[in-house]
């Protein structure tokens, strides 16, 4: 056999093997015709763990809107973002995908990549399906983009058994919270959870917004510097609490839900989606654990600030499935859809008319809407990405080796200076 036949044989073998397998390839009857508003909608999400819940919801969406989702989950959020951005350039531009509010959404909108949803929002507000406050999170230059997939309030979860054992009531003021932490520490129990990677921002967010919401806002617009004396003062409160030993070991990699269950710490500041993890770890809602809205550091604020996070469902402007995606989005906003979604996946509902099954989460929804609470955007969405990356790292380093806050703040401010200079 000569060399050419050799190459030929190699290629033939490759082709044969691949053709064999292409025969049973993954084409799955998705509705590709432009303009269709019923059928199977391809849906991409970085919340891969929710895939079974979306599948469960298909029964309701099939019945009420004649659309079923074909869900593809991604596990690495950062790579998911890159994948979605890349997909806008291809035939695979997504009909429905999850994204983030804030800076990330604005980037897509600026490039004209996301379908407008102003009409959907107008209808939703008219029907009482969503609040004005939430609409603001989805508004860029007076137009709306995407619809809310989920909403979470950042509150304090606590181990009820530990609180009862030490006669601690739900704190309603900052002083009571401090007193509770002191009591716990004296009894040999670490009051608060902390970590050195990723979720390192919440206590900073809570301390700043709870001291002065304007200061918090200033950080996200660049008007306030991380090295300003007000911020340093707040960091000193945090450092003081570190020195009192109020935070759990930064080197622990134990699942926070398990940590709360086994009493590694008594309280954890987390988003209201945390109920799912706690239930999964075998704790009973309202019996083993409960939650409270964290009181403001500054008692004179009038309203108590509560961090809110909302993840959007978006439709790509140039997707073949744009109309189908928008039809699903419209259904998604409705009270029926949100009640069905809440049955599939227990969470707080953005739609006030939806039925929430877990009484604790239903209460939380009512509490934050009572006029005495003020929602503010979570640090994760409020902060431009490059600054956020550095801030998460620096807060993590601070948690691991608490000390003079200045070097940490300077590192964050250096990145912020660079970022805001680029925006000029």
């Amino acid at each position, binding site marked *: 056999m000569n060399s050419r036949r050799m190459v030929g044989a190699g290629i033939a073998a490759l082709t044969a093997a691949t053709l064999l397998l292409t025969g049973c390839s993954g084409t799955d009857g998705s509705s590709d015709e432009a303009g269709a508003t019923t059928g199977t909608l391809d849906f*991409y999400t970085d919340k891969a763990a929710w*895939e079974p819940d979306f599948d469960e919801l298909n029964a309701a969406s099939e019945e009420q809107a004649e659309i079923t989702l074909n869900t593809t989950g991604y596990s690495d959020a950062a790579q998911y973002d890159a*994948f979605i951005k890349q997909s806008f350039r291809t035939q695979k531009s997504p009909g429905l995908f999850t994204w983030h509010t804030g800076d990330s959404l604005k980037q897509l909108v600026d490039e004209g990549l996301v379908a407008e949803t102003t009409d959907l929002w107008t209808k939703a507000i008219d029907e009482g399906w969503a609040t004005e406050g939430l609409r603001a999170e989805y508004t860029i230059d007076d137009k709306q983009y995407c619809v809310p997939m989920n909403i979470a309030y950042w509150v304090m979860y606590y181990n009820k058994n530990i609180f009862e054992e030490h006669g601690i009531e739900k704190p309603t003021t900052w002083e009571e919270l401090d007193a509770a932490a002191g009591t716990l520490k004296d009894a040999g129990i670490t009051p608060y959870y902390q970590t050195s990677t990723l979720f390192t921002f919440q206590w900073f967010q809570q301390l700043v917004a709870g001291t002065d919401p304007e200061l918090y806002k200033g950080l996200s617009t660049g008007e306030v510097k991380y090295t300003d004396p007000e911020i340093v003062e707040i960091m000193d409160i945090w450092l003081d609490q570190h020195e009192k030993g109020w935070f759990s070991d930064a080197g622990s990699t134990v699942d926070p839900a398990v*940590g709360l269950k086994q009493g590694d710490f008594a309280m954890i500041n987390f988003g209201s989606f945390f109920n799912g*993890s706690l239930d999964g770890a075998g704790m009973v809602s309202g019996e083993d654990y409960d939650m409270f809205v964290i009181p403001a550091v500054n008692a004179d604020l009038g309203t108590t600030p509560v961090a809110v996070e909302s993840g959007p469902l978006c439709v790509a402007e140039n997707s073949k499935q744009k109309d189908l995606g928008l039809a699903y989005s419209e259904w998604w906003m409705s009270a029926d859809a949100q009640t069905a979604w809440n049955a599939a996946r227990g969470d707080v509902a953005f739609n006030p008319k939806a039925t929430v099954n877990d009484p604790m989460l239903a209460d939380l929804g009512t509490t934050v809407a009572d006029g005495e609470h003020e929602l503010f955007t979570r640090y994760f969405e409020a902060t431009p990405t490059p600054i956020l990356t550095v801030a998460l790292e620096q807060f993590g380093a601070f948690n691991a080796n608490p000390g003079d806050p200045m070097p940490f703040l300077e590192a964050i401010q250096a990145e912020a200076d660079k970022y805001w200079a680029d925006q000029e």
Partner: protein
Amino acid sequence: MSRFLRTATLVALGIVWLLPVYLLIINASKSPTTFTSTEAWIPTDFSLFANIADAMQLSGLSDSVVSTLAYAIVSPIIAVVVGAAAGFAIVALRLKRGFLWFVVIFGGTVFPLQMVLLPLFDAYSRVGLYDTHAGMIIVYTAISIPFSAFVMRNFFTGVAHNVFEASVLDGATTWRIFTRIYLPMASSALVAIFILQATFIWNDLLLGLTLSQSDNVRPIVTTLSGMQSTYGGAQMSTVLAAAVLVSLPTVVLFLFTQKFFSRGLALGQY
């Protein structure tokens, strides 16, 4: 060293090596609702099968098994043969500038895989390979070739060149020499490459995540990885149970291929 000492050393080291595996299995067997991290070394209960069932249900693992098996078998086989052919060309046929060509193939490994993904996704979706079995086989094959070529090239350098020359004098064609003499002679190396690459592909996450979307095309670990998430998802013992389940086929593969490495290959006879 005496036989006894060698055996004793290996047994002692082997036990140390198996300790994390022990931890993996006993913790995968704990019920998520009673799980604590404070009794790491002590088995508390046996819920392994319940955890595995949970994992299968959560991740839809079963859809992925057949296609992942196909990738993990077909791609390494092609890669082993292609790599051996390259090694044969360089060593036995003394390809001109062989080292340079070898570096060209080997150079395929120096680039961080993460950066290959986005251009590949773009290209795949343009030529219609995205989310197809063929596309996955091709990419897994390409990824496996450099390693395969490297091992085979170096393995063949251990073979005296007069083996080749003698065969030529017998009137054999290069193809025949390759398939009848060099490949059989290299069976332990071929099997080693095969199992290592099959394991790599079976456990691949990155390529599967980027280049496929359908449940019946996505590799198994890709579906598994989604289970773990801050936003709710599986508990640690469920994830570990899933890892145990997914690892079983590769462990079995290693078990059954060990005999290939048991006998010394009497290369001296050539």
